[in-house]
């Protein structure tokens, strides 16, 4: 195994425990620039986890083990920090991540009905992903758009003043958009639900 393939802060061994098997290219090569920048700065674990999630969509056990190894941190600590914060996910998410606001203003203005509409339309509950790998539903604490309540975010877009009909319409539109562009939905159902 050549050093260049995935030597970061240490050379990988057949039993190094990072999931590389010692003879394969580093599966987390894209994370190298992040580790180069942050691994030696104390207190950067959350930042590294955030960047890792941005790159890979979620934090797999292998990924967390790799980060632990590279930052010389106990895997238990990496896992402990990751599970403390709601931002971190441990399962793959769909192409569209629906973040349904459960803030006070949204609650008072009917976020329950909005949640029901999403669940009815997609036939999933909180935390689940649709079998086609398109949508994941997550409830989140306040998104800070209270005057437009009830609100949801889908990826980076915010939708306000939602009603049952509006929600169904938005989801149908996204579904149609994804259907037109099959190359876009790379994640297969098996991968998502694995």
């Amino acid at each position, binding site marked *: 195994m050549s050093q260049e393939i995935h030597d970061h802060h240490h050379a990988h061994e057949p039993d190094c425990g990072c999931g590389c098997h010692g003879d394969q290219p580093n599966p987390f090569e894209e994370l190298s620039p992040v580790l180069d920048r942050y691994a030696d700065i104390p207190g950067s674990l959350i930042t590294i986890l955030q960047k890792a999630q941005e790159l890979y969509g979620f934090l797999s056990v292998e990924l967390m083990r790799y980060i632990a190894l590279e930052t010389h941190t106990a895997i238990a600590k990496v896992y402990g920090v990751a599970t403390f914060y709601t931002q971190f996910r441990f399962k793959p998410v769909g192409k569209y991540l629906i973040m349904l606001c459960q803030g006070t203003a949204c609650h008072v203005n009917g976020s329950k009905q909005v949640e029901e509409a999403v669940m009815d339309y997609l036939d999933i509950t909180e935390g689940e992903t649709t079998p086609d790998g398109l949508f994941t539903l997550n409830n989140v604490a306040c998104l800070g758009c209270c*005057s437009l309540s009830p609100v949801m975010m889908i990826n980076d877009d915010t939708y306000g003043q939602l009603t049952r009909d509006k929600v169904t319409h938005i989801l149908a539109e996204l579904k149609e958009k994804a259907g037109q562009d099959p190359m876009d939905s790379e994640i297969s159902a098996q991968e998502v639900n694995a």
Partner: protein
Amino acid sequence: MKVIIGSGSCGIAAGAHKVQTAFEAIIAEKGLALSVEQTGCIGTCYLEPIVDVVDDAGNKVTFVNVTTDDARRIIDDYVIAQQELADLRISQDDLTMIGKQQRIVLRNSGIIDPEQIDDYLAVDGYAAARKCLTEMTPEAIIETVKIAGLKGRGGAGFPTWFKWDAAKKSPGTTKYMVCNADEGDPGAFMDRSVLESDPHALIEGMLIGARAIGANEGIVYVRAEYPLAIVRLQKAIDQAREKGYLGNDIFGTGFAFDLRIKAGAGAFVCGEETALIASLEGERGMPRLKPPFPAQKGYWNKPTNINNVETFANVPWIFRNGGAAYAALGTKESKGTKVFALTGKVKKGGLVEIPMGLTLKDVIFDIGGGIKQDKAFKAVQMGGPSGGCIPASLLDTQIDYAEITKTGAIMGSGGMVVMDETTCMVDMARFFLDFTCKESCGKCTYCRVGTTRMLEILNRITQGEGRDGDIELLEELCYKIKDGSLCGLGQTAPNPVLTTIKYFRNEYEDHIYHHKCTARSCKPLLTYTIDKDKCVGCGACKKNCPVAAITGEKKLVHEINQDICIKCGKCFTVCKFDSVIID
């Protein structure tokens, strides 16, 4: 002439980007000499997207709820044909809502372009920092803040000068200035708006504070749910650095201060100072015992001062206008202004900034325009999960830290969620307990297990399975959790339950003893029936019932089978003859 589009998160959610694209396309198509610019949030979020058209003489006309079709009308009819276009203009009533406010923190919000430092400089930006660094001693800076009477706007209301003074006097050469922008209180968005609309005000406030305590490094801890705020603040930091307002030798004084952003990862408890510091250090955000206070041992055990966004945003104004001018506003104990996020069942929701001392009624009815659909006001929730519900009988309460605390709620960071007769107060208590239970870090047993037990009881009550003695049990748990918790989260978590029991005990009793939810909000306690006199037998309910609980022949009275009914409410929604009764 220019077109300015309100592009805070609220504006964008309402379609500001689409409107901007439409304007740009029309202007290009017609070859007009009009620039399209953006600004932050003016606070009247219910009117978004908001578009200002400013002529070369600086006269501004505001158009509200603008759609992409309206963009064409504004260009064709207003800009080119010079017609009034009265139907799109902001109404006198809405202008009054803004006019009744006193804007210090929001002085530039919705007026300047947050992404252009020159806009901030044009309104005297960084003049206060220049004065503080070049003309004032750290002692004099702290004294001015003391005269102003500024208190921490994050919730606890601790005097800002005292914290600065403690951090300044703390021995050591390495000190940190931290801004808490982890606005986790559901129903509050003041800090997001300041970050998105006027980020330089925060930077300038932090720079002044850093000079006072002798910190050369600053960190803004922003919650990850605010992506736009992070982008705008980062741009502002870069611009300030370029102009020399951050970095080494600021204003030629030899003083160095630099600022960076740390994105939070979603944990309400990180609003607590010691938990925030743990999170900054890359740990689980769990609070620790105080003392030592952060002013003695904070970030990496160095003296650290933490203030919230709104507190810092007040600071430049205080130095431009004097501490006495700030102290002239407000009440004896609570000086200056406070920004509130007015939301819920209020007609005109948005951000309002008012001098302390106005009453709740002034804010909700005079500025907020009263209750949506003119329903009956029931309560206003202040202080989020740490606060409580204030009933109609106390609407004349003055907005003042001590006065609000007397009601059992707290001033908090500024969430003001208005509730009407359709909001169930037991459900509200359950909602907040659900939140604190999830957000408890788990360190203290009473907070971890106690909130879970309380949530279970409240769940039971709202599901119609309340028992005799539940109210007393809740109260007992409340006091024990308050006593047995280390940090503010646990100590205040019972407040939503205590205040609702205090002011709305009858609703708890109705749920427990009469299996009734008078607000008609707790579904398991409702029964849906069809009014025999009103039903015309149209069949709409039968067709829409998802569980086929409704029977009846065409043109004859229909009936709901209570054993099958899942109380989804669809029949009520679809009935055009008001014949479905909820009881």
